[in-house]
């Protein structure tokens, strides 16, 4: 039987982990597998981190690494860290027009954000991790997280704008 600590750990974190996995894999069965695999690695490794913050960061980091490790994914994921530095932020439309739109649009638009920016942006929007924790989870400097969030938001806005234009009546 799983220990009480392990059960509490699963109950505390499986939902945000699943949502993170879902944003990576974009389908529920794969996200379930990835989430389960992450906890099994924890169980197998016998981790005994008592600090919940560290446990959470470990779980997110491990899930992300497992995602990258998947052979098929690894072929499709670009060598992210080898990408050239982003040029100037793309022009971003005003944010207000998306507030109050139907739910689900963001998830449709997120795949259009470069993966380099999408991962930290997803972690940010899950609101489970601070700047510093995202930096730890992705093993990049805080300054890099800051710039990737800014650029990711700009790309997301642009993607949302395209979707909004594409779904307007005159374009239907």
């Amino acid at each position: 039987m799983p220990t009480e600590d392990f059960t509490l750990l699963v109950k505390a974190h499986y939902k945000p982990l699943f949502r993170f996995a879902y944003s990576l894999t974009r389908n529920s069965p794969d996200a379930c597998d990835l989430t389960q695999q992450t906890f099994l690695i924890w169980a197998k490794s016998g981790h005994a981190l008592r600090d919940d913050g560290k446990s959470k960061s470990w779980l997110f980091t491990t899930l992300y690494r497992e995602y990258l490790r998947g052979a098929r994914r690894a072929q499709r994921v670009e060598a992210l860290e080898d990408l050239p530095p982003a040029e100037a932020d793309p022009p971003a439309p005003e944010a207000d027009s998306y507030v109050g739109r139907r739910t689900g649009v963001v998830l449709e638009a997120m795949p259009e954000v470069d993966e380099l920016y999408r991962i930290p942006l997803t972690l940010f929007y899950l609101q489970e991790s601070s700047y510093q924790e995202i930096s730890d989870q992705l093993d990049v400097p805080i300054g890099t997280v800051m710039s990737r969030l800014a650029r990711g938001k700009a790309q997301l806005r642009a993607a949302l704008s395209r979707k909004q234009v594409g779904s307007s009546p005159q374009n239907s």
Partner: protein
Amino acid sequence: MKIEEAKSILHGYRPNGADAANPHFREALALSRNDATLRAWFEKQQAFDQAMSADFEAIEVPESLCDAILSAADAAAAETPRSQWWRGRLAIGFAVAASIAVILTLTLTLKSQAPQSAAASPLAAFVISDAQHPETHGGHGEEAAALNRLLKLSTTRLSDPRAIDFPVLHDTGCRTLHLESRDVLEVCFKRNGAGLHYYIARRTDFPNLTAPSAPAIADHAGVSIASWSDQTYLYLVVSPTGRTALEKIL
């Protein structure tokens, strides 16, 4: 601090207020209170970020996922019982004595690698647990779809020899479970109205498990599992509704 620098920092300020006490944001927040332009920008950012976060929060998590994780961990623990004597509250002297016993026991166990029936193994418990949560399943990929079509045919006997290409199934997206870092493929199919789950594991991944060459059915609390093997693979088919559904198609 300049406005642009403050904006860069405030991009990371979570809209749920979790960063309110984080000193990293203190100066930028103070500047936003005193600078009308920055304040307006920040308010728009927060509204935008809040709307985006709400979408992530709306991602539905399968209700059974928590139980599935705990069951899988249970099965994995049964597969490789861990000696965690060092976490106990035993006195040091007792721990030393116990450690010697544990080491001896482990040594003997590892050397013996006693064969175990696949039908009564942790692998069986693992797939039975998985089969009881079909809402987390899903066939993926062309090869898995082709196998699904074959398994659905009324003329197909499950135990008939067939060419299974594990790597191709795996690489083309067949649902893959992980038990102690070992891959187990799964394909769902229906026969005679019953939902069944076909699992394939590499024998090399489970060298101590044995299974007959002809299918044998075992029952576990209302769930039936047929297991057999060939030279390369172990096959397990789980029927959550009992053995009748299996007996008709093996």
